[in-house]
């Protein structure tokens, strides 16, 4: 008898974590999904209903363009940060343990910075009175200082800055486990350092690199503040519109529909890339 209750207890799983995650994570998603079919109510946030108008609304040239903008920016940020992060992380993993720790502390500190601070710091760095404009004047490359923000370039810099530490942290475990004798063997056989890196190390890391690209892509897709601080209104991404609809237009059903849509797009992209990665290997 005691063994039976013990076995039942075994299969029950940990009650408290399960309750917390279901109540505070799964339930909110279910409610959000249902609200995306509700109708808008100016006074009380939303009215129970079943309508598809919230979804129908963004099948329009305006939101099509917004989606395309969001996807393009995130793709660009992902490609830039991962292509810098691959060699950078590789070099970091070849350092002594002590220096690796120093680098990791610095990267984690950058990673933990909120978008508000990244946006503020970059807008300062690119500003007229406190930015690189002053530096360019000082070394004689420019006549008078000027501001480089808001602009598309500023926004892309900010998004890359946001995604870069994540790219490094995804690449770090795999690259640090890479047997150093493998690239060395390629060198012994006469390959140049760059060639041994591109032709030997990179193909071994293909899945990890894909993983890093996806993570940075999905993560920057969620950027809601950088487009407002560093970009112009036409650079507003889907995430900015979601917050805008939820808080300032108080249209929660429409915001929920957009959030569900954004989630489906990210999941689909993750799925497609995983399938492609599997097909190639």
């Amino acid at each position, binding site marked *: 008898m005691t063994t039976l209750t013990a076995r039942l207890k075994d299969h029950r799983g940990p009650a408290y974590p399960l309750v917390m995650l279901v109540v505070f994570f799964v339930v909110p998603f279910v*409610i959000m999904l249902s609200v995306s079919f509700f109708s808008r109510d100016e006074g009380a946030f939303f009215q129970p209903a079943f309508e598809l108008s919230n979804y129908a609304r963004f099948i329009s040239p305006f939101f099509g363009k917004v989606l395309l903008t969001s996807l393009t920016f995130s793709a660009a940020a992902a490609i830039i940060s991962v292509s810098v992060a691959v060699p950078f992380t590789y*070099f970091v993993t070849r350092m002594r343990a002590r220096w690796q720790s120093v680098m990791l502390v610095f990267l984690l500190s950058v990673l933990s910075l909120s978008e508000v601070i990244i946006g503020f710091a970059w807008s300062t760095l690119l500003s007229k009175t406190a930015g690189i404009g002053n530096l360019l004047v000082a070394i004689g490359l420019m006549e008078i200082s000027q501001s480089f923000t808001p602009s598309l370039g500023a926004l892309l810099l900010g998004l890359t800055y946001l995604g870069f530490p994540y790219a490094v942290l995804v690449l770090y475990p795999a690259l640090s486990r890479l047997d150093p004798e493998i690239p060395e063997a390629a060198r012994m056989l006469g390959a140049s350092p760059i060639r041994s890196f591109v032709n030997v190390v990179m193909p071994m890391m293909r899945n990890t690199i894909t993983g890093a690209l996806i993570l940075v892509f999905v993560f920057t897709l969620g950027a809601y503040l950088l487009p407002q601080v560093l970009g112009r209104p036409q650079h507003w991404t889907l995430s900015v519109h979601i*917050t805008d609809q939820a808080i300032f237009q108080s249209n929660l059903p429409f915001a929920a529909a957009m959030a569900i849509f*954004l989630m489906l797009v990210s999941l689909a992209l993750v799925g497609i890339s995983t399938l492609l990665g599997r097909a190639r290997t």
Partner: protein
Amino acid sequence: MLILRYAFILVVLLFLAAPLVVIFGVSVNEPKQLLFPPEGFSLRWYAELFQASDWLNALRNSVVIALGASTIAVSIALPLALYVWKKQSKMAQALFGLGVAPFLLPPVISALGFMIFWITVGFYGQIYATIISHGVFLVTLPLVTISLGLEAIDRQLIEASRTMGADDKTVFRTVIFPLARPYMISGFAFVFVLSLNEYIIAYMVAGFTAETLPIKIFNSLRYGYTPVMASVAVFFVLTAIVVFGSIARFGDLPRLLGAERARR
């Protein structure tokens, strides 16, 4: 070739450090203007963070939320990680996946989910709502660190204590818990720093009633410039460096981040 390598590392580090250097510079400006290189040297904008009642209030909210959220996150992550570690079942893997999921989606989606949830249950705008939301959203971090710590425990140690007559509770108290403790502390620290910096969830759940420092910075950014924003940003950077630096000093940071072997 070596020179090229160091030049590359240096350029990347410069890119990462440049904005931080500039905000440090503007935070010590004497006049209330956005100037770099700074004019004069003054620490009064740091004093204002701890004196001006509105900034102090935001600081207090941020710290209370971060402490509460880290406690909740670790309290969920520890039993979950133990369960996954003991059982390698499908159920355990599904639960682990559920614990990792919040971190894999664009945060704005979870933020809206939390907002609608708290409106529905009637706690929208309460600081408790922000604390719980942060705790659940960031549960991934202690879950991953504690799992790493448990994996490193030699199962023979547990066998040994069992043969000497220790029951489950004693094994947990005398073997598992002390070995997992450093990883719990790191997980706690990760959640603390990320919660302190988190903007979108705090904003959408209780942005107008429980104003945190990131929200306060963004609100001030809209209505003009004050150097206090820069001093808060520097405060954040320093907190992160101190916290992660201590983890690296007292623990094995490369291993915590997934390296199997680091060069000595």
